């Protein structure tokens, strides 16, 4: 039997159906897809990222070759306009007639535009498709002020988009609060304050009567209360309506507020026509989220396959509704709504917590008997979302005082999260991909014991990513249960943690990798253990990293003492301690960059970076830098990077100590120090903190009486404020404490663990750290200081050694058998400098460039 399947709509859900069918490969299926848009399915959920840098291709959901390989006929820019259910034929806008055996409506929704006079003026938009966004972008380029009508979830996302376009942004909401559907009054107020702080003006309780020509801008919006607002562009985001027009016209039965009636198999009243996704109406409602749509797609794929394979329909999956809880980050503000957020269940009780200073609001709705969680709202901090959601979905019994689930604990420790063991095997952990705890555990048992492997095996965590923390928890718990120690072994070659290896190296005075692997490891080593051991050896004995025995351990960056760039060229960063540089120094750097045609830029670390050096140029560039008085900046190493300074008491009218002098001294003291990860420091001359010391691994802030020492701060991926370790120190004590702190970190941290993460995992926390560093509780302070002293007194500039060591220098050529340069490294001009050519540009005829080496 063959079956002609016609899918109308190639949006997120329609495409999921195609993928499911392609995977099942039922016999005899012939699929045609009508796609109204000019491009096949893309990720609407992440649509807004189009304005923060993603291209249409990045958003595509179509694997390369998908349609060709699965033999699906895709008609782009083809809209269905009529369904003839008697003849089983669909007509398109172009007049093409397509016959079907089964049809699936996956037509999604359209934005609702309120019937306001003037709503279709040029410069009025909706926010649903990439084409909508392209149009907004074009108009936005000529606009200053943009307004979003609608303060719901999508409206706020749209406001972010307008801000990303660089517009002054306003949100106009009819209801008295933002996100009226998801959050309650107080939550709405806190959300509003947060959003306003981000520079978006919010107007609530405003109903737009009319849009006419404006005076100071293109449009004027007139409100019911007599006020008005002038704007260059207006975006409607006042809700969505299911696209059920085809179904209405062929009398398929629709809900009172729209949506095509379907049963548990997503069949309409005509069993040859299914409806899935946002256009479907099931159990009295429609579903404006992607996860329920994906569920429907799976149900229909299974149903169609069963028909083709003539399987009995009893064991088939059915659509059973969906939980509409959501967690979002709107303009950087966490917002979550769970279950019955408004407490409409009869007899329910609620608990609320709000912190006006930190702008956090949390609410729990529990059943009358206090045993079950019914819903909740989280604004400003949604870290409990995963736990609360699972408690609600699985009906887990609440503790006696459920308020503690949302109250911050007084000792600052994290609240006990819901243990993975408390969840039943049926608990759905990843809603986007419908993966249960049981499935995760099975995959772990079958060998998926890393997050990468588990994602590949189950797809959990691959869509919105919101479930990843919980998936990790389940994985670890299952591994523990299987007796698979969640080990911290460095890699397959060493059954030791970094900390243990460090200890072995120290105690057994091991100086070379070969010795260590022969005694304590196996195999050849790899790109994980080799650089880690190289770093340990350098922290302990400080021998030249390019010395014969250490050379092959170094990560490429350390091996060539420079950072490799995407095209295989390198960057060159000379040290400028404290960010101080003389005019002569600057001129020398400029002259060298000019001579070798390098791209120059001031880094975020107060120094100059030169990019685009070819491997063979590095030694001569460095020779010239060394002649001009510069040293290696260790930008390539897991080592001290920079000590950021402010001008302090020497120049600044507020400075109370010589922050610049101290920054330079610190940088000179710790330069070259190899550590588990890179180290950054800063010294500020007063509490205004212009050097941003509280964002560094080691931060020093001047006080009237000396220095305050902060530790374990971090910028980067997960910013963390540094904490005060000791206050009002004199300079010798400051240095003593930093010596101890750094060596203690080097001894005990994991590989590639910044001080911030190390500190978060340190048992006993800050108090323990103070005990060790300030009060010498372990009696190791003198030892730590002596170890640091050894490093400080054996410092040598690596580049100086490299350029004078003929063995090391020999390695800096691209070819072992030719003096030519790498022809694949090609630059093109941009803004008066060079940048790497794109693959496209490389394919075009090249402009010959001369390369300066010696």
């Amino acid at each position, binding site marked *: 039997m063959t079956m002609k399947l016609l899918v109308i709509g190639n949006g997120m859900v329609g495409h999921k159906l195609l993928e499911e069918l392609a995977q099942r490969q039922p016999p005899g299926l012939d699929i045609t897809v009508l796609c109204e848009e000019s491009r096949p399915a893309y990720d609407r959920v992440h649509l807004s990222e189009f304005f923060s840098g993603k291209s249409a291709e990045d958003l595509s959901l179509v694997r390369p070759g998908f349609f060709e390989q699965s033999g699906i006929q895709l008609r782009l820019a083809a809209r269905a306009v009529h369904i003839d259910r008697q003849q089983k034929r669909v007509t398109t806008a172009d007049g093409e007639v397509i016959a079907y055996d089964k049809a699936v409506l996956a037509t999604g929704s359209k934005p609702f535009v309120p019937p306001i006079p003037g709503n279709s003026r040029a410069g009025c938009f909706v926010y649903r498709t990439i084409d909508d966004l392209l149009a907004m972008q074009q108009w936005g380029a000529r606009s200053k002020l943009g307004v979003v009508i609608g303060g719901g979830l999508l409206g706020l996302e749209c406001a972010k988009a307008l801000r990303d376009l660089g517009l002054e942004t306003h949100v106009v909401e009819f209801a008295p609060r933002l996100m009226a559907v998801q959050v309650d009054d107080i939550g709405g107020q806190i959300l509003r304050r947060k959003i306003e702080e981000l520079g978006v003006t919010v107007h609530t309780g405003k109903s737009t009567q009319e849009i006419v020509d404006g005076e100071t801008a293109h449009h004027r919006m007139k409100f019911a209360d007599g006020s008005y607002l002038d704007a260059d562009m207006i975006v409607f985001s006042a809700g969505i309506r299911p696209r059920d027009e085809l179904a209405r016209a062929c009398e398929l039965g629709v809900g009172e507020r729209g949506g095509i009636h379907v049963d548990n198999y997503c069949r309409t009243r005509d069993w040859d026509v299914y409806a899935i996704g946002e256009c479907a109406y099931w159990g009295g409602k429609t579903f404006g989220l992607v996860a329920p749509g994906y569920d429907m797609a799976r149900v229909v794929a299974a149903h169609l396959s069963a028909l083709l394979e003539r399987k009995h329909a009893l064991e088939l999956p059915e659509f059973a509704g969906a939980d509409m809880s959501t967690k979002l980050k709107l303009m950087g503000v966490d917002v979550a709504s769970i279950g019955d957020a408004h407490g409409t269940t009869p007899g329910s009780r609620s608990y609320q917590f709000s912190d006006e200073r930190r702008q956090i609001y949390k609410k729990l709705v529990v059943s009358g008997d206090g045993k079950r969680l019914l819903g909740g709202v989280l604004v400003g901090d949604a870290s409990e979302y995963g736990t609360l959601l699972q408690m609600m979905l699985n009906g887990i019994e609440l503790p006696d005082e459920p308020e503690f689930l949302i109250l911050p604990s007084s000792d600052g420790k994290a609240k006990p999260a819901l243990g993975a063991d408390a969840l039943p095997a049926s608990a759905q952990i990843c809603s986007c991909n419908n993966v249960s705890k049981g499935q995760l555990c099975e995959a772990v048992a079958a060998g998926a014991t890393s997050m990468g492997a588990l994602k590949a095996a189950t797809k959990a965590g691959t869509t919105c990513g919101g479930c990843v923390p919980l998936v990790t928890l389940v994985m670890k718990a299952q591994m523990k249960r299987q007796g698979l120690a969640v080990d911290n072994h460095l890699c*397959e*070659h060493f059954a030791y943690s970094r900390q243990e290896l460090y200890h072995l190296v120290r105690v057994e005075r091991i100086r070379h990798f070969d010795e260590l692997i022969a005694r304590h490891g196996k*195999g*050849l*080593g*790899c*790109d994980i*253990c*080799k*650089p880690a051991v190289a770093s340990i050896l350098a922290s302990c004995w400080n021998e030249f990293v390019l010395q*014969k025995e250490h*050379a*092959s*351990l*170094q*990560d*490429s*960056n350390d*091996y*060539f003492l420079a950072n*490799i760039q*995407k*095209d*295989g060229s390198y960057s060159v960063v000379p040290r400028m301690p404290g960010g101080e540089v003389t005019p002569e120094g600057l001129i020398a750097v400029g002259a060298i960059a000019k001579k070798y045609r390098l791209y120059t830029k001031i880094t975020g670390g107060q120094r100059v970076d030169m990019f685009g050096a070819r491997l063979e140029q590095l030694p001569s560039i460095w020779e010239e830098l060394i002649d001009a008085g510069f040293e290696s900046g260790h930008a390539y190493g897991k080592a001290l990077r920079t000590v950021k300074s402010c001008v302090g008491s020497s120049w600044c009218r507020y400075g109370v100590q010589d922050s610049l002098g101290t920054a330079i001294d610190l940088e000179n003291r710790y330069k070259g120090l190899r550590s588990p990860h890179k180290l950054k420091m800063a010294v500020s001359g007063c509490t205004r903190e212009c050097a941003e010391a509280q964002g560094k691994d080691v931060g020093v802030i001047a006080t009237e009486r000396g220095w305050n020492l902060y530790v374990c701060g971090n910028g980067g991926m997960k910013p963390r404020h540094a904490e005060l370790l000791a206050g009002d120190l004199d300079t010798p004590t400051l240095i003593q404490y930093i010596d101890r702190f750094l060596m203690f970190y080097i001894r005990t941290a994991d590989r590639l663990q910044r001080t911030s993460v190390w500190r978060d995992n340190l048992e006993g926390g800050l108090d323990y750290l103070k005990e060790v560093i300030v009060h010498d509780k372990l009696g190791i302070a003198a030892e730590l200081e002596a170890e640091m002293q050894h490093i400080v007194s054996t410092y040598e500039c690596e580049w100086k050694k490299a350029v004078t060591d003929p063995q090391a220098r*020999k*390695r800096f050529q*691209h*070819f*072992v*058998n*030719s003096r*030519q340069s*790498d022809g*694949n*490294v090609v630059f093109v001009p941009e803004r008066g400098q060079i940048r790497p050519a794109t*693959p496209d540009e490389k394919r075009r005829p090249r402009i010959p460039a001369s390369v300066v080496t010696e």
Partner: protein
Amino acid sequence: MEDRVTATGWTIVCELEDIVPDTGVCALVDDQQVAVFRVGEQQLYAIDNFDPNANACVLSRGLVGSVGERVVVASPIYKQHFDLRTGECLEAPEHSVQAWQVKLEGGHVLLGQPQR
């Protein structure tokens, strides 16, 4: 050193001492870039120098190691591993590269043809 082509079609690209043990170098043979690795004292391997994941000629600069029984190099750009015997890319097999014939003769390192 200039490369010399022997009568049998092998090209001498360098001396064994030119390669630091457990590292690689890049040789130019007929306009092709080949990464040649010395593992331990004597063992030689050769694969393309071009890393298709990064579109850059960098594999000779990667770290040499083992994954189970396989001897591999990790690309210095995004760290995918390539099997030195076959050129197979472990993380992205569609981005595998060619392996080359290579041998040691009287202290010289000789490159042959790509192995198909």
